[in-house]
């Protein structure tokens, strides 16, 4: 055998192989070049559809809107946004500061536990808050019993401030997460610089640490604000009308898809302003990034100060996480003693099926985008890829409208065409399937799966590619032997993130699902709109349990 090999010139073989694989690779490379633009096109369709309706305003509809709902929608949205900005920044920044610089009883626990509320969808906190603190809820009932009076002083939870408080509890972790990052990397060190320049700790915090962390804090607040504007479940449970609920009501209550899309276009405009603000501060964050300073010791708190901080963190965690879980547990027990809703398993199966499909499709597309970005690093490709990730900023209600309109058009076109050539009446082919939902999810959650994959792919350096090629491993075998093993855990992370997001997603599912095809989130919506808190508890707990998975991943990631 040895002799056979030595009789052939090995250099010649490798020459031929390289040449042919290069030829074949050229066409494939071109295909990769086109791919990001295709995906960007799909993502941009709903945006363009919605914008088109903004550019061609229907005077009649606007007249009607202005004279009826629009003023209150705008003021509601404004007050809610202000409330969330103030609330999340107060909670997020102060908690981040305490847990990153001070030592107080339980600081280690609170450092990660304060992330946990991210696992609870805002609409779950919302209906727990309503069920607990409403007139008929356990708190007011027992207080009435104790004081033997009608409790006129008890604030009405079903109000603007009530929604703002619920959303603050649900969204403060975004601000907490980002400002903690800033404080951990440079907080204590900058405080020391200020002290060595003659400032007290308090002066140092306000004059150095806060201004330095401003980009992080603002970015966090913008994320919270985007969630607020995109929220549908919370506001509809509270009957607090904002754009998302108005879109839903005009579409499904008044059957006016065009009014819905006009409203959506206005909402998208507001979101755009927020994204631009966020991007500006992100840019500054990059400039402010300094080397992570050496581990510095925490400042110990003692006496009443330590107690106050522990008490504060404990209170936030109680209302944002412990109370909802306990209350849901009690309700779920109540509901289970009556008997498990037979359809619960069907809803859970729908949720899981949908989430798995969406996760697979989204991750596949995201992985292909990341690979395309690696092959082609030119400005156009990068721009196209950035466009593909804007879907995350689109409120679900807007996206639902923006995808439904072109899909319905395509559907009609398709069935007409088939009827014309074959004479068979097919009816609608796309609506009534999961396609519309899956495309919408892919559009919305591409960013969620793209960024972890992209950063993982960056770890596979070009020299690894070249080293593998040096051993003759190229093309599919490189994918199988190098890329997949190295990206496995990130693929898993990305798929998990999408899975959980789809599980708890409400407006897209509600507006684009096939008729009577309910998921857990949709079920929660319909049960809570009838005040059946205890029936909604089990689906809600299921969502929280799955929601905990990515939070645990996040905590593990941030602790190492």
């Amino acid at each position, binding site marked *: 055998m040895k002799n056979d090999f030595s009789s052939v010139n090995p250099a010649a073989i490798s020459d031929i192989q390289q040449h042919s694989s290069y030829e074949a690779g050229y066409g494939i490379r071109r295909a990769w070049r086109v791919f990001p633009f295709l995906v960007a096109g799909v993502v941009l369709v709903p945006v363009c559809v919605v914008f088109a309706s903004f550019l061609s305003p229907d005077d009649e509809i606007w007249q009607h809107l202005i004279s009826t709902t629009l003023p209150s929608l705008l003021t509601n949205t404004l007050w809610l946004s202000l409330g969330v900005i103030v609330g999340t920044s107060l909670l997020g920044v102060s908690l981040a500061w305490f847990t990153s610089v001070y030592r107080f009883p339980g600081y280690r626990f609170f450092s990660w536990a304060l992330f946990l509320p991210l696992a609870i969808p805002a609409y779950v906190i919302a209906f727990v808050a309503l069920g607990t603190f409403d007139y008929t809820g356990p708190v007011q009932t027992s207080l009435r019993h104790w004081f033997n009076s009608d409790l006129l002083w008890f604030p009405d939870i079903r109000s603007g401030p009530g929604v703002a408080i619920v959303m603050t509890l649900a969204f403060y972790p975004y601000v907490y997460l980002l400002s903690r990052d800033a404080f951990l990397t440079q907080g204590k*060190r*900058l405080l*020391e*610089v200020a*002290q*060595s*320049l*003659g400032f007290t700790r308090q002066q140092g915090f306000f004059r*150095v640490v806060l201004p330095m962390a401003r980009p992080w804090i603002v970015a966090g607040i913008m994320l919270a604000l985007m969630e607020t504007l995109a929220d549908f479940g919370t506001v509809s449970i509270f009957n607090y009308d904002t754009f998302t609920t108005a879109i839903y009501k005009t579409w499904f209550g008044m059957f006016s898809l065009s009014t819905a899309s006009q409203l959506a276009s206005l909402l998208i405009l507001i979101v755009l302003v927020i994204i631009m603000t966020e991007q500006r501060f992100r840019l500054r964050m990059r400039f*402010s990034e300094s080397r992570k300073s050496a581990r510095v010791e925490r400042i110990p708190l003692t006496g009443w100060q330590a107690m106050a901080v522990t008490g504060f963190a404990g209170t936030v965690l109680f209302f944002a996480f412990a109370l909802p879980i306990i209350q849901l547990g009690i309700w779920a027990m109540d509901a289970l003693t009556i008997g498990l809703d037979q359809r619960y398993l069907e809803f859970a199966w729908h949720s899981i099926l949908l989430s798995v499909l969406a996760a697979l499709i989204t991750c596949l597309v995201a992985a292909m985008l990341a690979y395309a970005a690696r092959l082609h690093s030119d400005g156009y490709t990068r721009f196209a890829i950035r466009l593909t990730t804007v879907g995350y900023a689109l409120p679900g209600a807007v996206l639902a409208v923006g995808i439904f309109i072109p899909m319905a058009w395509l559907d009609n076109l398709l069935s007409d065409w088939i009827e014309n050539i074959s004479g068979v009446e097919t009816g609608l082919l796309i609506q009534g399937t999961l396609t519309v939902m899956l495309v919408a999810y892919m559009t919305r959650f591409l960013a969620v799966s793209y960024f972890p994959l992209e950063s993982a792919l960056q770890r596979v350096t070009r020299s690894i590619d070249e080293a593998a090629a040096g051993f003759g491993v190229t093309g599919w075998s490189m994918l199988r032997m190098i890329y997949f093993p190295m990206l496995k855990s990130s693929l898993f992370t990305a798929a998990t993130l999408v899975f959980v997001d789809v599980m708890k997603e409400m407006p897209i599912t509600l507006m684009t699902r096939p008729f009577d095809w309910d998921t857990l989130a949709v079920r929660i919506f319909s049960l809570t709109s009838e005040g059946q808190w205890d029936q909604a508890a089990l689906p809600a707990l299921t969502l929280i349990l799955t929601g905990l998975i990515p939070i645990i991943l996040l905590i593990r990631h941030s602790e190492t």
Partner: protein
Amino acid sequence: MSTLLELDRISHAYGAQVIVNELSFELEKGEIGCLLGPSGCGKTTVLRCIAGFEPIVSGEIRLNEISVSRAGFVLPPEQRRVGMVFQEYALFPHLTVTANVGFGLHRSTKAERAHRVAELLQITGLMEVANRYPHELSGGQQQRVALVRALAPYPDLILLDEPFSNLDVSLREYLGQEIRELLKKLNITAILVTHDQAEAFAVADKIGVMHAGKMMQWGSAHELYHHPANRFIADFIGQGTLIPGKVTHSDKVETELGTLAGNIYHPGHSSREIAGSQVDVLIRPDDVIHDNDSSLRAVVVHKAFRGAQFLYTLRLASGQSVLSLISSHHDHAIGEKIGIRPQTDHIVVFDRVNSQ
């Protein structure tokens, strides 16, 4: 000259873990001190204790003869008039150079502040980058801004934590001299911390060598090199090997290299006291010179090119090795036997350790 800073047997500990152990030294006004030692020896912790960021569990730190740290008491950093330059500079990323430097002058009037900032930027050649942000500066400029920012409020003492570790090796020596000249010109008292001897020698008047939280010796570079207080210092500062010997007279030591003559230095004993005793003799590379005529022969086991010279590692007949700096014209092969002879006028000896 008066004493500005005194550390009086200070100790620092995290729980049971002792980081700094009974450490003492003093610094005169206008002097530049240096804490030198391998990483993890506790030198940065000492600096942070002086700044007031860390408490001490015993001993006392006095600044201008006023007690600022002792067990159970720490004067807050902002009341100490001690400036600090952090290892990673910790410049305020959201402020320009001018605003960074002026930051500590919050008690001065606007005009005073502007004047002081301009003066310092002028001295350090930072005037043309005055309106830039930290991320727009080179590493050397960032370091100067950090130094100037610490100097601005007229502190009594400046602390520099590994000031050169983030800079190119090629820049370090130059910047070290620059900093020394600046500090001397402004008559600033300073302490720097480093693990690099060359840096310590280039910048400091007094050097303290630390090891495992203890001060091994405090003195000038010359003292550390020529009068090492113990074997650790002899080994850590400069190069050399220890070979066994016997003191025969107050100025003569018998060794395998022959009889060494010169002033005998033994830490703790006078040369007369140790006459007749078995010792280990510190042989520096310049104590051994190449001599073809010498009957003393040694085998070349290793050589390192140093430009003008080779640093040869030579094995004596007994298996003991010594170092020798020999002009690089003499390019000897490994394994070759060459003639050498000792040339000493100053001999450092330690009590013989049996294991050697």
